[in-house]
């Protein structure tokens, strides 16, 4: 197990190297440069050249990359060109908001999709099944920004409980406060602000996982060992939950890791619609301003967290299926 984790952690290194290279060269080779975008209406070409030299943009690209990478592995991701502040602190300020959003989105997705998928499989062909599958199809097809706007119009505007924009307090922080001081205020506030954006973010994942859960469950229910269990005289309930469910869960868990990637990508849209102050918006704004240090550090950290989440998912297989060995 330890060996496995170490091996996987090591395998993240080439991934990170690859991501950093691709991102660095893509953003630097794209037309547009930060200085021209920064200086506004009245700078002269000489002013621009001078400022570019200060940031080292006049150097060959591979030198710029090596310089940046050398600093990055020492934990120095540089200073934002536009905001004149260390990139790491800009990212950390917003990381909590995005992590909370993505986890809540996934939590909602699992909360809905697993029971619904299982139910649809057991009651195959019933109205629950047909309804769930129709909803799932719609859920996959709806673009996130549209889901977000609809939630704002039909839920946000009608229920004062849900604010229309922004973020107030932290849900995770609120949970801790509740358990330490029994004061639920922060938790509830965090929850109010988080629920709609998380729901909008999680819609597609919910839909996909419901379908997956259903088909996986159907497949398992037709396996020999399930028939055996049934013929032993075990009740449907025991067969379904004790024998079939755990095995059916495996493909869903696999996809959860990958879905996190989509959630982080979808966060760009959701954070914009809900004015959520997260990392995705920081990165997307930095892209349009060509604020290279933020884009590079931001995408790198997203890539690392994606790799780590998938590692955790792989480890969790072992708990679901003892047959899986990690060596």
């Amino acid at each position, binding site marked *: 197990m330890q060996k496995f984790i170490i091996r996987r952690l090591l395998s993240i290194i080439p991934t990170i190297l690859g991501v950093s290279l691709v991102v660095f060269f893509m953003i630097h080779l794209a037309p547009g440069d930060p200085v021209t975008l920064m200086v506004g209406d009245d700078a002269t070409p000489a002013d621009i050249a001078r400022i570019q030299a200060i940031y080292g943009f006049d150097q060959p690209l591979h030198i710029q990359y090596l310089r940046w990478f050398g600093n990055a592995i020492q934990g120095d991701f540089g200073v934002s060109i536009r905001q004149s502040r260390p990139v790491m602190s800009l990212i950390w300020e917003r990381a909590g908001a995005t992590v909370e959003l993505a986890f809540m989105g996934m939590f909602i997705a699992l909360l809905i999709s697993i029971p619904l998928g299982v139910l649809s499989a057991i009651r195959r062909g019933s109205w629950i099944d047909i309804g769930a599958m129709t909803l799932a199809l719609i859920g996959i097809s709806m673009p996130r920004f549209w889901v977000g*706007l609809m939630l704002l119009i039909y839920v946000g505007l009608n229920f004062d409980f849900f604010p229309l924009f922004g973020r107030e307090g932290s849900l995770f922080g609120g949970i801790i406060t509740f358990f330490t001081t029994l004061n639920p205020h922060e938790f509830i506030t965090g929850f109010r602000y988080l629920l709609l954006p998380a729901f909008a973010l999680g819609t597609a994942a919910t839909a996909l996982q419901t379908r997956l859960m259903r088909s996986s469950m159907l497949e398992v229910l037709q396996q020999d060992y399930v028939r055996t269990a049934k013929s032993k005289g075990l009740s449907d309930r025991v067969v379904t939950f004790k024998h079939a469910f755990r095995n059916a869960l495996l493909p869903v868990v696999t996809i959860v890791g990958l879905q996190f990637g989509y959630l982080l990508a979808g966060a760009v849209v959701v954070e914009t619609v809900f004015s959520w102050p997260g990392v995705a918006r920081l990165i997307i704004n930095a892209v349009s301003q060509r604020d290279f240090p933020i884009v590079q550090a931001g995408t790198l950290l997203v890539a690392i967290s994606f790799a780590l989440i998938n590692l955790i998912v792989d480890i969790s297989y072992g708990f679901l299926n003892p047959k899986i060995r990690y060596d």
Partner: protein
Amino acid sequence: MKKRLGLLVLLLAFLLVWTGGIAEAKTLVIGTWQEAMGLDGRVEPGVAEAERSNTIMEALLCFNHDMELTPRLATDWEHSDDGLEITFYLREGVYFHHGREFVADDVKYTYEWLLDPDNEAPNRSLYIDIVEIEIVNDHEIIFHLREPNGFLINNIARMNIVPRDKAEELGDEFGSRPVGTGPFIFDTWRRDDRMVLKANPDYWGGAPKVDELQFRVIPSDSARLMAFEAGEIHMFQGGVDALEIERLEEDPNIVVGRAPGPGYEYVGFNQKSPLMNDYRIRQAVSHLINREGIVDHVLGGIGSPAYSPIPPMLPWHHDGLEPHAYDPEKARQLLAEAGYPDGGFSLSLHTSDVDHRMEIAEILAYELGELGVDVEIRIEEWGAFWDRIMHTTDYDMYILSWHGQLDPDRATYRQFHSEGGRYDYIYYDNARVNMLLDEGRIVPADSDRSLEIYREVQEIIYRDVPYAFIFYIEEIALSQPYITGFEVHPYHPASWENAHLFDIED
């Protein structure tokens, strides 16, 4: 079962608790479309930055709602007869937020910092005519100029004064926690979410009527409008959906403020492209723009048809001209004169991903298509589009805008002088225009000669069509009916600089 019931009760209790209010300070909430990069006007000249920082810091002068220069930190100013000196008389008894009195040395520091090439100030070239700053006493200061510059004063009205001690102490950090003399004091700033400012009770113009001012960033236009209609923000300017305007104006619970702004949108013609070098083809394109139709149907009536680079609110504006008429037949004739009776050539039309510009591009491509001209529309992300017109000549036409055209020099020199600097991306070169624009810089701004010069420039531009002007922009602001003291400002960066006069009525 009991356990579950308990959980439900607990949950209900939670729901009740959140409604528990706290004694509220009077907080004015302004929505904006974009976060500021920093609040130091010396290094960040953008609108999103200025609309915030102008509530914290002040310039020597400012523009009133009629776009006339009015006193701010200076109570009066005068040009010397030879035009080589500007004397400012500074307001006395004004204190920075950290308690020190505002004096002439702060003005000197601000401008010397700006002019020092090592400080990377992007707008340095605007002030380059200032060669020396002489302090007469704490409340009188003289700017010595290299040559007469009648319009420098407008740029001085756009530069906020920073306190020497704080600016030196904070360095780059100054833009993240600025100190000024303005009606509001910087408090906290969570980027991409909110900026909180506290009222300055000692403000020389009178203490603000609210206790706190917040800027909230809501990037999505629809979400911002919803937040406004739900009462979560009190006001915002810009980014109002054209399709919503009519409904909003009919709603008695919404105050829609409109004011013609100092800017316009246009089609630019790259004269390094052989086709666009022919003024008849440029005129033909101009006659294919249905300006009325675009304003009414694409812009929801926000704006007005344009025909000159100098906005109508400035005295130099030529009101004897009128927009080129929408006249496809005339356009066909012009193309025939140019040697293309049936079209038969193709042009590229570039713009960035702004909704109404993409629509205008489609309309223009259709109109040209009717005359046999094949138009390839290329929409690019802003940075890429900007890079194309700044650094390449690989385009025939593009759609773009100019804002903040506060004086006739700013509205013409960079655009139409063949040595106008980096903004000459149409490569227009007309000896007469060059000569006039050079002269316009030297003659006194309030002279008849100045008016004559820019009148002639506008006439030449009108015939030559280096730009086909589409529409003059109009600023639009929404405010709640219970907000008093607010009037929409034609110059967006100045929108909230009088926020100390705004009040929230019960």
